[in-house]
């Protein structure tokens, strides 16, 4: 009986200590996130683009499943004319938050801008599925562009064939 009680007490104490250590390492991670978050704000305020991008990347490594941060990073890249990279991060944001219609719509508009109409239609379709009819006009125009592009491609192919 005595042995059992002692074992129980030991188990409780070791469990508590483990929890303390776990929370310590977790607090270190939180501290890092907090520091880099403030550093990011500083670099954004000082318009130090390169350093701000570095901070975004560090923050994304520290908290990988953060769609809001991915989205903010994508927006920042887009504003600084790094569209190719921004699309990658918009896609990641959409993957991390598949139920966010705004992210899907934003991806759609960027893809429309780079004339990836198929991608834009797909993104707007997702946005309409999640967010309802409010993205329908954008989807319609994307579909029109897609149709125009397809028609132009067909016409071009036909012309090529006729030439041959």
């Amino acid at each position: 009986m005595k042995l059992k009680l002692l074992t129980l007490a030991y188990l409780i104490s070791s469990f508590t200590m483990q929890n303390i250590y776990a929370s310590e390492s977790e607090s270190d991670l939180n501290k890092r996130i907090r520091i880099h978050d403030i550093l990011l704000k500083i670099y954004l305020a000082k318009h130090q683009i390169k350093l701000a991008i570095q901070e975004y990347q560090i923050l994304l490594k520290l908290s990988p499943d953060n769609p809001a941060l991915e989205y903010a990073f994508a927006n920042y890249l887009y504003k600084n004319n790094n569209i190719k990279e921004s699309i990658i991060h918009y896609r990641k944001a959409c993957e991390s938050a598949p139920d966010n219609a705004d992210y899907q719509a934003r991806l759609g508009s960027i893809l429309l801008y780079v004339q990836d109409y198929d991608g834009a239609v797909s993104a707007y379709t997702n946005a309409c599925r999640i967010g309802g009819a409010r993205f329908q006009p954008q989807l319609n125009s994307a579909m029109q562009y897609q149709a125009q592009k397809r028609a132009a491609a067909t016409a071009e192919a036909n012309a090529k064939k006729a030439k041959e």
Partner: protein
Amino acid sequence: MKHLYIYLLFTLMCCPIVRADQSTSDAVGDTGSITLTRIYGKAQELDRLGQHQAATIQYKKAIGINPNFVDFYIGLCKCAIEQKSWSDVSMCAQNIFRLDPALKPDYTIDYGEALYHLGKYDEAESNLKTALTYIDKNITSEKLHKEIQAKTDKEQMAITKKIQESQMTNPPIATTQPQAPFNQIAQPVTTSQPNTENTNSTNAEASNGFHTKKRSSEDAQSIVNKYRLSFESALKSECILLAQYEGYVKNDDIRFNHPPQANYHIKKFLKGPPLNPSLPVRYDFHIPKETDAPPNWKFSADKMPKPGSLWIIFIENAVPKHGMYETYEGSYGRQEANDDNLNKIYDLIDKSSGQ
């Protein structure tokens, strides 16, 4: 029952330690003053209840009385963060670093954030990077405290060794006049006439009468007294007053270690809570460490100051004992209110309140 005891013991070992000083009892506590302990306790209670604004007022009140107690700034810093009062956070962090540099790993992030919000981007950046190095190198305040403690212990050992060595070579002679080799150390009042000269004029006095003693012993003693017997340390007193000496309570049993009650009239409060203008003070003839009376010492009226003379009185704890206020480090807590001393005190008070 025994098992239950063992179980409770283990459970208690795992529980976080609750600080004893959080109580609001009338104990003097870590602050060294009942008044301060009460204010501090009230501030902590309000803080716990989420009344951060009211807690801030109490913390600031406590800091006004004793600006050199780090826990007040820690409490105020937490309240200021809750209220997003970044200038207060910055002020608190600076004072925390001044009073306990080992706490830097705990408050550098808060300081960096405060600087960012205050628009001091460059300073904020460097502080945040320092905070990152603390995490990278796993530097915690506990580790720094241990390092500082180890260093202090080492220094203390060296001082003790020096004292022992000096006593071995030169046996100590009874003395009442601690020497001050450092210019900033003012002279304790132990002579028949209170110190009316410049407080730094020690050399001439040291060459006369019972002041003459072995230099090596003095040096060791003065190193020990270095920090206590200075205006910087005396500034930690709860009350600093400018008071006029009016007289003393005469009785037949006035001895070197049984001083009389001296009556002062407060002219100005330099620091601390307002007291009754009539100030009864225990008129110590020496500092606490020097308990041996000089040879042929006998009390006479000329050992008291001139009635009407002005004095700076340092009262460490504003709680009278046996109807008298005790001065900081006995006779050291009464300094003549000459221009030099007043300028020094005003300067130090300005500096501490500015921070």
